[in-house]
């Protein structure tokens, strides 16, 4: 991998169609995960159906690689579409859902969508919903010293932004003369598990909290992948070149509730995938038949993937003792 300066791809018609492909892949994968949960092929589902309109552009705009020249990703558990847009294999997500020994992210130890991919600077995802806002400071600090245009981004929800680490991130990334290249992302779906955000937050424009720290910020319709693309291009360009933080809120839908815990049933909220498909048809970029072919392609592949995953081994009991300690030289 090289450390050449990052240039955002040109958002042409080909890319617009490619975005659709990745959004469908993300949605189809999440719906497969829910089916796995319902059919006994996984214990628990949590994920991000409804966030593809924002998360796919995010993945495509990520400077992917290992080390401080590249972007560090401090994700939360609704980020599958970002990983898939970066080139992640859906079958690996199915493996984590089924807790197989072949799960490359945790060997069956963690919930689905809890990624850990060192070659892409994806640091381990945790269910804590806030700690990623604290750990992002460290990778950004290393990048600030290192130079280049790599940045660290962190994603979380509106509920997680109520935690102290959200404020920690803004404070540490704006210390005078020590500003950090952090992109602070909040996907606002207006719920914290079952609690409506308007019961817990006075101002649902959470990005405006950044004003108190002098952090440039914006809010975008996360159901619109084109608007999200442009908002991310602007935010990332600022962070990459100014080496200062930026806070971007994306208003998104939560189409299947919080997780298995709320039944994972479909909710009547705006669907970024179908909205985008209507737009692609309207702009003569795709036909209904072509759109259907995309869905069929991914669903067929996921069905094949599931059969493979079902046949794969589960972890042996003895493996529980592996990796308690890191053996070998230190360093990431």
């Amino acid at each position, binding site marked *: 991998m090289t450390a050449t300066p990052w240039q955002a791809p040109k958002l042409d018609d080909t890319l617009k169609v490619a975005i659709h492909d990745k959004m469908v892949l993300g949605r189809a994968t999440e719906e497969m995960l829910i089916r796995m949960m319902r059919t006994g092929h996984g214990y628990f589902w949590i994920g991000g159906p409804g966030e593809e309109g924002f998360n796919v552009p995010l993945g495509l705009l990520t400077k992917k690689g290992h080390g*401080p020249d590249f972007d560090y990703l401090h994700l939360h558990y609704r980020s599958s579409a970002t990983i898939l847009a970066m080139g992640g294999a859906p079958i690996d997500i199915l493996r984590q859902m089924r807790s197989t020994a072949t799960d490359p992210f945790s060997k069956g*130890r963690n919930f689905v969508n809890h990624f850990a991919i060192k070659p892409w600077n994806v640091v381990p995802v945790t269910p804590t919903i806030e700690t990623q806002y604290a*750990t992002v400071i*460290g990778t950004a600090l290393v990048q600030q010293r290192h130079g280049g245009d790599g940045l660290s981004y962190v994603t979380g929800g509106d509920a997680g932004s109520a935690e102290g680490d959200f404020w920690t991130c803004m404070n540490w990334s704006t210390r005078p003369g020590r500003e950090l290249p952090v992109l602070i992302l909040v996907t606002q779906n207006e719920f914290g598990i079952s609690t409506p955000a308007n019961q817990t937050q006075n101002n649902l424009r959470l990005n405006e909290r950044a004003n108190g720290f002098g952090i440039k910020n914006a809010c975008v319709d996360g159901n619109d992948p084109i608007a999200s693309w442009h908002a991310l291009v602007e935010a990332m360009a600022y962070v990459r070149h100014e080496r200062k933080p930026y806070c971007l809120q994306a208003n998104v839908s939560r189409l299947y509730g919080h997780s298995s815990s709320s039944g994972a049933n479909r909710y009547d909220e705006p669907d970024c995938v179908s909205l985008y498909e209507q737009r692609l048809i309207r702009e003569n970029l795709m036909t209904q038949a072509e759109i259907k072919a995309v869905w069929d392609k991914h669903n067929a592949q996921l069905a094949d993937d599931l059969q493979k995953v079902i046949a794969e081994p589960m972890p042996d009991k003895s493996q529980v003792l592996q990796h308690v300690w*890191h053996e070998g030289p*230190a360093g990431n």
Partner: protein
Amino acid sequence: MANLAQAIRLALHYGEENLGVTDIFGEDVGAPLGGVFTATQGLKTAWNTPLDERGIIGTALGIAYAGGKPVAEIQFCDYIYNVIDLLKLCGNVTWSSAGEYSVPMVLMTPVGSGIHGSMYHSHSFESIATHIQGWKIVMPSNPKDAYGLMLSAIAEPNPVLFLAPKALMRQKGAELIPGEPADERTLHAMIDAPLGDRSDWTPNWPPVEDYRVAIGEAKIARAGTQLTVVTYGRMLPLSVNAAETLAKEGLEIEVIDLRTIYPFDLPCVKASVEKTGRLLVINEDTEVTNFGEHIIRKVLDEAFYSLEVKPELLAGLDVPGVGLAWGYEQNSVPQADDVLAAMRRLATERA
């Protein structure tokens, strides 16, 4: 001889120069203070943070993720409780990522009583810390071990919690650190910042050398045959002093300085108990769910039939804090007389 704070400072300097330490940070850790106990004075990678423990631990983990080697400090362990989930995260990253990531970081924090620290500068933390899996935990009782344990902690690919017994920070050692000047006044002139304006001051580091105390290795601080005392940190010198007093009464007490609390040196403890038939564990932490209970349980598992009398734990009183008044602290945390009495009683108890 260096005192314990100076020894930590020398070790961190060695770590900066030779072991890849990139950041030493925490509240008041950088200039001008260099730590409330001066353990980080004059270090080239030391910097001050916001008064934000969560930011300190999160930043350390992020630096480790990005290939750095951080040494973070929580100013007193009494203020560490709001970062428990981050400590849990540091400890589970390697396991939960199936070995994808390691966490080479050191977290140091002063612990224990003995400085009239009252409610929030006197806690112990080792018992809670040992419930946070994935960490190695060390606590020195003298400057040379502090130096050697710190170098090992820095070189360790896993997170290490370095507990510094605050009451011993100004205690001088009996042995020189390799490379340390023989004259302590010379050392003082070389590495201690002057009082007052120190903006132009830089340390003149002595050529300290690589010296490691392996994590997981205890030391027999005093050999004996009639009772095994397992202790660490501030309780170690009290225990050795008591053993020397009792030697005049004809009682030969073996005192083990655990040095590493987790994973602790069970073979060393077991071998000693098999020799003496008696076990007393001493520490400052509160007695309920005390780490000493774990030591006793492991000895019961592995050396039950070697025991001649029931093993005992001498620990802190189960009260919410160490009170400021002299009598409160004396009655909350084991003192020299308590140590002496417990050792005499157990060594002479009829089998």
